[in-house]
């Protein structure tokens, strides 16, 4: 290898520039990792809320016509669960409307810094 004629050391400015670029890349990577962690945390909280929605749905299901059960519940972090119990209109092949069928639904409003997320689960129940 022949040394180039213009060979010289790295000047301080180049070194600082390289280090700055390197740290910018690392910071960007760390931020993306952090945002992934935050997204996973939110998803995990949603799982917990999903389970609480299921519990409430099953509690209401025992006697959905009881107005005491169709009440909103506020959880931690201002998450609000609201059950609804509405008649379901279905017809058979002869056009006869099926009776005593209802849609039981629990809706959760999850406040986040940017917007309010809404999640819901529902089942169809037969309540004669």
């Amino acid at each position: 290898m022949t040394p180039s004629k213009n060979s010289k050391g790295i000047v301080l400015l180049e070194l600082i520039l390289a280090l700055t670029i390197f740290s910018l890349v690392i910071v960007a990577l760390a931020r993306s990792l952090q945002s992934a962690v935050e997204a996973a945390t939110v998803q995990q909280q949603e799982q917990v809320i999903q389970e609480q929605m299921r519990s409430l749905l099953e509690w209401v299901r025992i006697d959905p016509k009881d107005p005491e059960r169709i009440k909103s519940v506020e959880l931690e972090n201002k998450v609000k669960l609201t059950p609804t119990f509405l008649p379901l209109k279905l017809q058979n092949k002869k056009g006869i409307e099926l009776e005593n069928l209802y849609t039981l639904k629990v809706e959760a409003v999850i406040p986040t810094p940017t917007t309010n997320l809404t999640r819901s689960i529902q089942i169809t129940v037969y309540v004669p």
Partner: protein
Amino acid sequence: MNARPQKKRRAFTLIEVILAVAILALLGGAVASILQGSVASATALTEVSNRQSQIQCFIQLLNSTFRNLGSETLFIAQKNPIVDQSNLFLMFNNSHQLFLWHRDQSKFPAKVLTAWPSEKGVLSIGILEYNRYFKLTTTTESSFSATGWVHKIELLGDIKSLSWRFWNQATKKWSDDWRNPTQRPNGVELTLLLAESKVPSIHFFWIPPIQIQNLNFQNPTPIPPSTPSTAPTPPEPAP
């Protein structure tokens, strides 16, 4: 040698090197702290996520169990008078189809869902499998007897405390146990306080209203029980 010396070539001065090293240390420290924070939160999240998955699996198993209680399955829940007054035994008689494992379920017609103290000083909850039906003596004040559990299967560990309640829609009241095998509670509530948590989580399970059809079962050929180690002792038969 006829090397031509470069005109402006010079080495770093000490000040430049110190300055460069100082800047490098500052940047390195900042980057390291950011990375360390991210990695630590990712690790913590992984642990919490794994734990959450265990709890979710357990809750789903309970949910499917209570929801799919067949008309042939008898269910009672009572305190274990020997080991711990606060520890309930949830007994499922003729429950081949419940808590499905890979083994031949027809050999284990009775199961108990209960908690027991673990080595860490906390509770574990799981299943005791019996190779005999429980003998339920009366319809209002039931008790059971069995020769001993054959298998103990832990479902969830690291529990600080837990409690059960049973909802009776006819009386619209909660009860702390369930002693009538000819009826079913309309719902079961489990309150769990996990070792790493300060707030208890409450889970409610709906039970389908089914008329119980048969109280009398015949025990299959018993399997020799394995040696119980740390599981709670089942109560003795009622006199």
